[in-house]
């Protein structure tokens, strides 16, 4: 099985960390994985996105044209990537910042109030982790516990102080999604 995900948001929403953590978790579970960021002038204008592929076989290209899942942390990302998801795919919507619904009817929409949940935990910066908790609940790409452990390897020294918060956020996001 192969799961291709595009995650997108504005700079500062921690999209790259979200993707890196997912790829790290997949690695720890012995899967093939690739992570690919947007780079260079593409990032100008404050948006960031990355592609994560997790598979039980070798991965051809880390670049994802037709994802199984799109994660939209802000409205611009939803506008940009909604049309790219494969029919039958999933769109994760940060409902704290995105009012509109997904327009396509051949995909599943999962709404996660990521900012609100993170704020209730005391720090809106953990919204990315709330979202990731929701993603793994719905897709089962990797286990929640693995992500909790991977945080230790993936967080920068500066962010290590937030590790407990991030773990909580992962868990709350996991619970948030049916």
């Amino acid at each position: 099985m192969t799961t291709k995900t595009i995650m997108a948001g504005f700079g500062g929403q921690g999209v790259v960390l979200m993707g890196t953590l997912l790829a790290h978790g997949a690695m720890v579970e012995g899967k093939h994985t690739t992570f690919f960021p947007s780079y260079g002038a593409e990032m100008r204008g404050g948006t960031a996105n990355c592609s994560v592929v997790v598979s039980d076989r070798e991965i051809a290209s880390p670049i994802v044209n037709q994802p199984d899942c799109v994660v939209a942390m802000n409205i611009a990302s939803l506008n940009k990537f909604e049309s790219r998801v494969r029919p039958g795919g999933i769109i994760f919507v940060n409902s704290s910042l995105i009012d509109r619904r997904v327009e396509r009817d051949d995909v599943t929409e999962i709404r996660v109030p990521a900012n609100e949940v993170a704020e209730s935990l005391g720090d809106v910066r953990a919204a990315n982790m709330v979202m990731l908790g929701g993603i793994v609940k719905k897709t089962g790409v990797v286990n929640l516990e693995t992500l909790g452990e991977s945080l230790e390897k993936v967080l920068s020294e500066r962010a290590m102080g937030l590790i407990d918060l991030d773990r909580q956020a992962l868990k709350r996001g996991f619970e948030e999604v049916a």
Partner: protein
Amino acid sequence: MRLEVDDLKKVFGRPESLSDKPNMYCPGCGHGLAHRLVAEAVDALGLKDRCIGVASVGCSVFADDYFDFDFVQAAHGRAPAVATGIKRSKPDSIVFTHQGDGDLASIGAAEMLHSANRGEMITVIFVNNAIYGMTGGQMAPTTLVGMKTSTSKLGRDPKVAGYPVRVCELLKDLEGVAYLERVAVNTPAHVIKAAKAVRKAFEVQDEGLGFSLVEILSQCPTGWGRLPKDAVDWVDDNMVPYYPLGVFRDVTAKEQK
């Protein structure tokens, strides 16, 4: 022809020499302001039809899109050489380069120095933001001592990276240079001065007096990791003390500084 500062009243309209393309600069970036000052000067002096711009490599690589006159895009650091070729082949044209500090003072240091020394009748608009913006915030030759960048994570250490290059000071004794001024664009008062400097530089070229360069201390909120409003203060607090503003050479002045 001398024009006075109150010609700046057009500030809120789009100068004829600017195209209607929206620019791609980050909010609070100084490059766009520099373009506007050039366009205003070119319009005010009536040079538009003779003007040829040379875009360099850096965040301003698409400068050719933002102006409404002829333009050529040059390799990294080579804009003054390209400008030399243009001016020598078409001496009645008004030629200027728009270059960042990495482009001009690092890889293009030789072209900068020698075009100045030959007294090429070109104008260089030098945007000094103390960092490599386009490539994601690496140390530039102009990065201040102690400043953290992605290739000086512990802060610029002059023992291994040398001290920041002061371009105007470096060029001021070259005989070929006709006009040299360092300005800033972080406050309205500075912008007014900068506009005057840019206009003067083009006048000097038009009069065939020699090489002219205006160094514009410029904000790069993205590369500095600062909010635009803090970046504006950072120019005054950190850049201006090391890079003093003022005229460094002016062959039209009776008494030189």
